[in-house]
């Protein structure tokens, strides 16, 4: 598995800024990670090391947070760029994989 952030995630991050009404830029870095510059802040998104219990990391000013999956990644990025945003505290139970 490549250690680069996949293109669909890069695309999602770019479109997320627009959807959230946050002006900024999303660019791939030489390391394969993604740099987000918006709201006067810089966040770096990368794949987490395989031995860590999460898939993504979001780093800012030396502080790194882990995210289990895409929903957590979006939550962390949005919270980082828009401190006033409060996620809806909702958990949806997974669909039964087959009908009962």
């Amino acid at each position, binding site marked *: *598995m490549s250690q680069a952030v*996949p293109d*669909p*995630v890069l*695309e*999602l991050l770019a*479109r*997320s800024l*627009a*959807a*959230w*009404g946050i002006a900024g830029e999303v660019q791939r870095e030489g390391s394969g990670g993604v740099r987000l510059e918006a709201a006067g802040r810089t966040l770096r998104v990368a794949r987490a090391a395989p031995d860590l*219990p*999460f*898939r993504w990391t979001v780093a800012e000013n030396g502080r790194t947070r882990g995210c*289990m*999956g*895409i*929903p*957590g990644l*979006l*939550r962390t990025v*949005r919270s980082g760029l828009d401190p006033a945003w409060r*996620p*809806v505290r*909702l*958990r*949806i*139970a*997974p*669909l*039964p*994989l*087959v*009908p*009962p």
Partner: protein
Amino acid sequence: MIPVAVLTGFLGSGKTTLLSRLLRSPQFSRTAVIINELGEVGLDHELVETSEESFVELSTGCLCCTVRSDLVLTLEDLLRRRDAGTVPAFERVAIETSGLADPAPILHALMGDARLAARLGLAGVAATVDAVNGLATLAGRPEAVKQVALADRLVLTKTDLAPAHPALHARLAALNPAARLITASFGAIDPAELFPPAGDGGAGLGADTAARLARNGGHSHGEEVACFALVREAPIRAVALTLLLEALAEHLGAGLLRLKGLVNVAESPDRPAVVHGVQHVFHPPAWLERWPSADRRTRLVLIGFGLRLDWVEALLAALEAEVEEAHADPRPLLPPGPGRR
């Protein structure tokens, strides 16, 4: 499962007339009716002729503001009385909201109560729109906009007084291109329009809906409400769908007025899942016995404020890529918690 239809529409738009006419139909002879009125003196129930005892008037206030729990209690009581044989064994329930009601909390009440959800299924939401005054009402009353945006079917009333202005048609199409537009003739419509056959589990997502939305282009209108359809040829894995719903609810919150969909779940190719959501509340999916038509595409309709189709498509694409990768990765995609596995 007893179907429940919600009839909404702004004050004076013809809800009671429509319901009264429908109840005269033999097809509606076994219908329990719940009418919510604003004000201390209820009149609507006097105007609706019904011989059934299973007729309840809620006059304690606007359903959407104060009596969500009353609605649940009323429905539970109706079901209890039905089981005990003290009211006729009604086969459907019609709820007429007050003219100023926000239908969303009413749908929450229907979808969010586990005991009700086990016995009652949402058959759809119909909103009446006055052909004479509708355009002005939609321009000035946000309640009316939300009623139209949440509906599966829009019923144009009072067209015997004046034909609906093309601008009204355009406004309705812009607010809710997914809804089927029906014209009432002297306050009457085909009863099947209010309680459609349960072919797609109430999602109202036939090929015509997808086509209308495709013509609409799925763009945001620059108005209060946007509506679009996400259409997928390939099946979606259940865990990707779960994560999609979770992310939509988390980021759109109350801005997501309605989500409804017929989903081709990869793990259940022959039995599609019907999903319903209103704002941040999602109903457990219903599994249809079979596909209602030859069209086996996933069709998710989203209606709400500030929606962007490109973001939802990018979100689903990223989730699907992550789920595919997860097959070779032991790390969980979902955090532990109630209902998690």
